[in-house]
């Protein structure tokens, strides 16, 4: 796969996370960005979550469009504390898009195809091209305060959404776009910056509810989520079976199959992609086309083979502890008493038999 060819596929991938902004002047026009007046650019987002040997590799891309005054940003909830945050492969996300949306055949493509606390605690800082990334630990209020104090614009549903995540994992990644650095680096408008977050976690999940942050209930959330796992995963919520209708709404599981050798070879040949395992992997593609009001959970993944994705990781409330039935308890008591009486009688009989002898 030729990088240039992939770039020509022009699949725009954007933030698969909350996107916040620091000033009214920067306004909309940014993929997935939320403007202070509530206007939103409806752009499809792309994410890859690869899980191998207890480590989640989370890849997403941040892009901007339009005139930016330097205060764009986003906050992404994470399932654990990352060990490193680096620039992702140049075209990994685009290659995944091509895998599920083959381009119209052309001569060129045919050739290519052959190829927490009171205050939030700052845990890590990283720079990836024009992005300043800060990993925070803290509760919803602490992280919200940190974001506000650092110039992030938080929409009105942010307090509840941050609490939804902080209750499970108080780790957040705040990403700020540095327009001056982007200009100095010659970053073109609309050009994405891939970010690769390495997160050791026994319990992987992919944030989905965050995609609906700041959106009106009827707004359509569109996202492509790719999974690469050691074996076929079980997920919660379960994806819908595709009906063939391109306008089908919901979380539609379009693909679930062993990753093709060509896909894996292509992904491994991308820059900074040595982390991709050499063995076979299972490929899952989820297409999300659903109103914001229905995106109320995250995607819990169990790739262990046991087939039990964690409902808590998906954001479902903890199951209520069943209250013991008083009648059942009484029956058990009587049963126990009965067994004790039988045992005593048997012992008495044995003793009697011994004395008679």
């Amino acid at each position, binding site marked *: 796969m030729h990088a240039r060819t992939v770039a020509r596929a022009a699949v725009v991938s954007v933030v698969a996370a909350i996107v916040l902004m620091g000033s*009214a002047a920067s306004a909309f026009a940014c993929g997935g960005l939320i*403007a*202070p*007046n*509530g206007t939103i650019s409806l752009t499809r987002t792309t994410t890859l979550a690869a899980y191998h040997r207890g480590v989640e590799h989370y890849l997403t891309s941040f892009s901007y469009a339009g005139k930016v005054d330097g205060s764009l940003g986003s906050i992404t909830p994470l399932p654990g504390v990352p060990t490193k945050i680096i620039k992702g492969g140049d075209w990994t996300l685009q290659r995944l898009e091509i895998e599920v949306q083959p381009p119209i055949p052309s001569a060129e493509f045919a050739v290519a195809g052959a190829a927490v606390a009171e205050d939030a605690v700052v845990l890590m800082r990283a720079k990836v091209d024009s992005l300043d990334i800060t990993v925070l630990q803290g509760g*919803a*209020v*602490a*992280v*919200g*305060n940190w*974001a*506000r104090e650092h110039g992030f614009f*938080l*929409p*009105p*549903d*942010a*307090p*509840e959404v*941050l*609490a939804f995540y902080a209750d499970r994992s108080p780790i957040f990644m705040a990403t700020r776009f540095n327009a001056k650095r982007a200009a100095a680096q010659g970053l073109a408008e609309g050009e994405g910056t891939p970010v690769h977050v390495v997160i050791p976690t026994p319990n992987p999940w992919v944030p989905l509810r965050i995609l609906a942050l*700041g959106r*009106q209930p009827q707004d359509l959330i569109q996202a492509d989520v790719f999974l690469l796992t050691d074996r076929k995963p079980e997920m919660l919520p379960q994806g819908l079976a595709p009906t063939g209708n391109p306008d089908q709404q919901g979380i539609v599981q379009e693909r679930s199959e062993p990753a093709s050798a060509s896909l894996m070879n292509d992904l491994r040949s991308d820059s900074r992609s040595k982390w991709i395992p050499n063995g076979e992997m299972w490929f899952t593609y989820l297409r999300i086309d659903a109103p914001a009001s229905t995106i109320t959970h995250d995607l819990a993944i169990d790739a262990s083979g046991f087939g039990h994705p964690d409902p808590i990781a998906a954001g479902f409330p903890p199951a209520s502890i069943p209250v013991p039935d008083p009648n059942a308890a009484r029956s058990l008591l009587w049963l126990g008493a009965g067994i004790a009486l039988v045992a005593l009688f048997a012992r008495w009989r044995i003793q009697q038999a011994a004395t008679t002898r």
Partner: protein
Amino acid sequence: MRRGVAAAAACATLLLAAGLAAAATATPDHVRTVTMTIHYSRFDPASLQVEPGETVRFVVTNTDPIDHEFLVGDAAMQEIHENGTEAHHGARPGEISVLAGATVETTFTFPSTLAPGWEFACHLPSHYDFGMRGPITLG
């Protein structure tokens, strides 16, 4: 003589102090205090009933990590604020900014009649549409 003057002065001081204290704590009988909480960008209570011409002291607590507003008024006033650009409120009765984590208060006297459309609301960007508004009616 000196003792008499001193005693009179002491009495006068005491009387003055007592008068000042009474003035400070005196509140008209018709002032009602309403405690309003903002949590997850929602008002609690979600609606309010007032008497004609009643004066209400609002004590507003914002538990969220984001700023809010508490603005009392009729539909025309709410529309002005929805389209307005005032960054902060506090100068006019019944209009106050509630910063993240803060508790503030404002006192407002309602007119004797209320046309439909009286509300308390927050007009920070997209907050009103999110549902940060509650109707005010006559009880």
